[in-house]
């Protein structure tokens, strides 16, 4: 299944509201969200700006992969079924099972 069409604004809102990442980024035009499990930084995500245009599928893919979510889980995150606590269960599980020392999944798009 592919990632659905979402506006940049929708993606931004759900990442900020549900995942509550630590926000940073001073140089770039975009905020960054840093995802922690406990005290440990485990992922980062580039947060889209507050635009109403539909996000390019390619960029949505990068964001989903940054969050360690597959297409279905990313769709659920933005459309609503996936809660913030549900997300943290998924990333905890994926960090236990996946080896991120392998070539990054970004190569496989």
């Amino acid at each position, binding site marked *: 299944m592919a990632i659905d069409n979402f506006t940049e604004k929708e993606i931004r809102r759900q990442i900020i509201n549900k995942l509550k990442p630590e926000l940073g980024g001073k140089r*770039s*035009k975009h905020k960054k969200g840093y995802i922690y499990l406990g005290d440990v930084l485990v992922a980062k995500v580039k947060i889209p700006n507050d635009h109403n245009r*539909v996000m*390019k599928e*390619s960029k949505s893919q990068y964001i989903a992969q940054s969050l360690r979510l597959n297409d279905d889980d990313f769709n659920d995150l933005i459309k609503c079924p996936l809660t913030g606590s549900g997300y943290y269960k998924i990333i905890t599980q994926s960090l236990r099972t996946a080896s991120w020392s392998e070539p990054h999944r970004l190569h496989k798009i």
Partner: protein
Amino acid sequence: MHVHALKQDSSRSKGEKVILYNESSSAEINAKFIRHLFQAAIGSSQVKFIKSDVLTSRQRPKVRRTKIFDLSSDLYKLKRPIDIRLEIFSDETLSIIPELELYGEGNTEADALEDIKAELIDLYEYLNTLPEEKLGADPKSWKKFIDSLIID
């Protein structure tokens, strides 16, 4: 100035709306009003909206490789050129460093390359605020890679 339009189906009470937007602002307009306007102007019996954003969102980019040789910064220098993957769409370009899971973006290739430089510096500065024990496996590998690229 370019203005884009996106049609959205909204709640029944508000009816369909069209969002007109550019980089800095947006406005919502009732879709019926826009239809009447076009019908009056061009005499068409039926005006259909094409979701141009949706069409371009699935567009396949042209892909090519380039390098950056500096960070456009007085504070930071590169130890060596960095390979960048460019994804070129009709209306936007992405610049990507897969090893760091970073991408920049812009209307042009030059804008996208400037953005990835800013992204790199943001990541470098952020990782340097954290002690080693607060870095998970991937952030550790990003830090190792980025430290091999940048000199303060």
